[in-house]
């Protein structure tokens, strides 16, 4: 009789320890019906976000007390076959409050992602720091923030807001790259309605203080508003499809799709002759970028915040690119403090992940006045200049109509380091618009004229043709070329192939 035989024969296979584990798992994974508008439990959310069957939980038996788990479900799975790390707050355990164990659990997941170079997706649903854990809770929250910052130099981070995220729980999303909120379900605020009322007397609902409308339109704290949890997962997965897994990595390759023929044919007619008439910049983008055949080829970020500018992930020749554009249809396409922050943040992000930045310009200028100066538009505008200067990915700029003054520079001008710049043949580039320039240059003549209005118009037309047309800039080498609108896509595709070649 061998030793092994002796063991197995003298100890009949007891199932007691197996039963214990089975029971432990049953207790821990017991489904707690989600409250309120919530659709799924924390664990279900992590599973639904990842490719089917791919989610693996880290330390599922970790506990913060006698009942319940750590208050957060962490683990990894895949999205379109690529690994991602997930941290999903468990609102069924103390309303998802962040205690010491919760924080430790999240930090372990963050460190794993940073070490191995995988994106992190945070599914947030937390009332904030766990008061019972006192200073340990605060210490833990701070630790999560510090790793958010460390991770931001290494891997994409996306936050989904699927419940109220108060106090400390609101800061972590703000330190990540992109935040997606579910309408009438997700909220972010430093202080909830009761404390607001007690502190200042302001009477406001949770949604007014920190709902998806507030944050995707007014504050810009969140970048996408969606209808439900499943749509939030879909958007986050789509976002990841444009990105590499980590800094220095490469996004998944996608088949190039030419721009639709009818959109290209329409291109020369999109921009109205008269420079004061608005148009939809999306019509220009449609004639230039890869066609979005199935709704997954483009993702506009912050579409309703600072809507005078567009920031969008898209594809050109099958490669992911970041598109920045003025949107004349909204507020005339003007730049202001909020638009500057929106653009600078986007350009920074694209550059960090080697996405070419393609900028389409039709800008009437920076909005002047006391309100904007009071908002610090000088500082915010400078942030935008800095973002373009520091961008290490290819920067390509197309002036489609007006580019005046400081706004011309700010919209990815050659002087800020754009690799290649073009202007459409009908565009205008100058220190100021014809009206203002003529008033300054011909003050005396206009004062003495019999019909100043007629003279002003005549001089403005002359200025537009002789000074503002793009040929002066092209002759000076400040523009690489003056092009027809329908040539734009080819120029950009050729440029991207040269500046960011596929590795052999």
């Amino acid at each position, binding site marked *: 009789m061998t030793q092994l035989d002796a063991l197995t024969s003298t100890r009949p296979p007891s199932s007691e320890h197996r039963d214990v584990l089975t029971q432990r798992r049953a207790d821990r994974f017991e489904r707690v019906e989600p409250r309120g508008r919530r659709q799924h439990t924390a664990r279900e959310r992590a599973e639904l976000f990842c490719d089917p069957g791919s989610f693996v939980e880290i330390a599922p038996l970790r506990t913060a007390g006698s009942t319940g788990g750590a208050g957060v479900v962490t683990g990894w799975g895949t999205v379109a076959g690529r690994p991602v790390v997930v941290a999903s707050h468990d609102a069924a355990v103390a309303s998802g409050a962040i205690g010491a164990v919760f924080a430790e659990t999240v930090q372990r997941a963050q460190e794993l992602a940073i070490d191995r170079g995988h994106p992190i997706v945070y599914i947030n649903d937390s009332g904030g720091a766990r008061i019972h854990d006192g200073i340990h809770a605060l210490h833990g929250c701070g630790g999560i923030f510090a790793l958010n910052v460390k991770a931001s130099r290494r891997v994409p981070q996306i936050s989904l807001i699927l419940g109220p995220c108060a106090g400390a729980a609101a800061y972590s999303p703000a330190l990540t790259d992109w935040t997606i909120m579910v309408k009438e379900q997700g909220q972010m605020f430093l202080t909830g309605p009761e404390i607001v009322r007690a502190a200042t007397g302001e009477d406001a609902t949770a949604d007014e203080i920190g709902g998806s409308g507030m944050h995707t339109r007014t504050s810009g704290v969140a970048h996408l508003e969606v209808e439900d949890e499943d749509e939030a997962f879909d958007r986050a997965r789509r976002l990841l499809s444009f990105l590499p897994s980590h800094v220095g990595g490469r996004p998944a390759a996608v088949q190039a799709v030419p721009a639709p023929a009818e959109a290209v044919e329409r291109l020369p007619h999109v921009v109205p002759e008269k420079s004061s008439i608005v148009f939809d910049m999306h019509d220009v983008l449609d004639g230039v970028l890869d066609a979005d055949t199935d709704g997954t080829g483009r993702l506009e970020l912050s579409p309703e915040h600072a809507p*005078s500018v567009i920031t969008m992930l898209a594809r050109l020749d099958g490669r992911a690119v970041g598109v920045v554009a003025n949107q004349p249809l909204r507020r*005339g396409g003007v730049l202001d403090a909020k638009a500057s922050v929106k653009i600078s943040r986007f350009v920074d992000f694209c550059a960090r992940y080697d996405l070419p930045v393609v900028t389409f310009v039709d800008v009437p200028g920076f*909005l002047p006045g006391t309100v904007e100066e009071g908002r610090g538009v000088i500082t915010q505008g400078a942030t935008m200049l800095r973002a373009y200067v520091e961008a290490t990915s290819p920067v390509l700029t197309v002036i489609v109509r007006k580019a005046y003054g400081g706004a011309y520079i700010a919209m990815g001008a050659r002087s800020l380091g754009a690799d290649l710049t073009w202007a459409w043949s009908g565009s205008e580039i100058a220190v100021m618009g014809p009206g203002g320039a003529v008033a300054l240059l011909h003050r005396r003549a206009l004062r003495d004229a019999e019909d100043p209005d007629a003279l002003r118009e005549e001089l403005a037309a002359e200025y537009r043709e002789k000074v503002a047309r793009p040929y002066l800039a092209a002759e000076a080498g400040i523009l690489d070329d003056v092009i027809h609108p329908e040539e734009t896509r080819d120029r950009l595709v050729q440029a991207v192939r040269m500046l960011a070649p596929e590795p052999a």
Partner: protein
Amino acid sequence: MSTTPAVADVVSNVWKLLTERGAQVRQGDVLAVLESMKMEIPVHAPVGGRVVEVPVVEGQIVQEGDTLVLIETD
């Protein structure tokens, strides 16, 4: 019954008013054209309904967020 304002989205001059009290409007109709930064910026009806108030006049300077037209919906 509730009312919804169409607001100025940028500091501007009310260049043209294209509606009046009592008019029926559909969502997306152009109610006014603002002039700012030498751009003609159309203001669209956020909802369909009946115009109950137009608290501005042509030539008036308006700030971001100011109500231009008040629309009553059923």
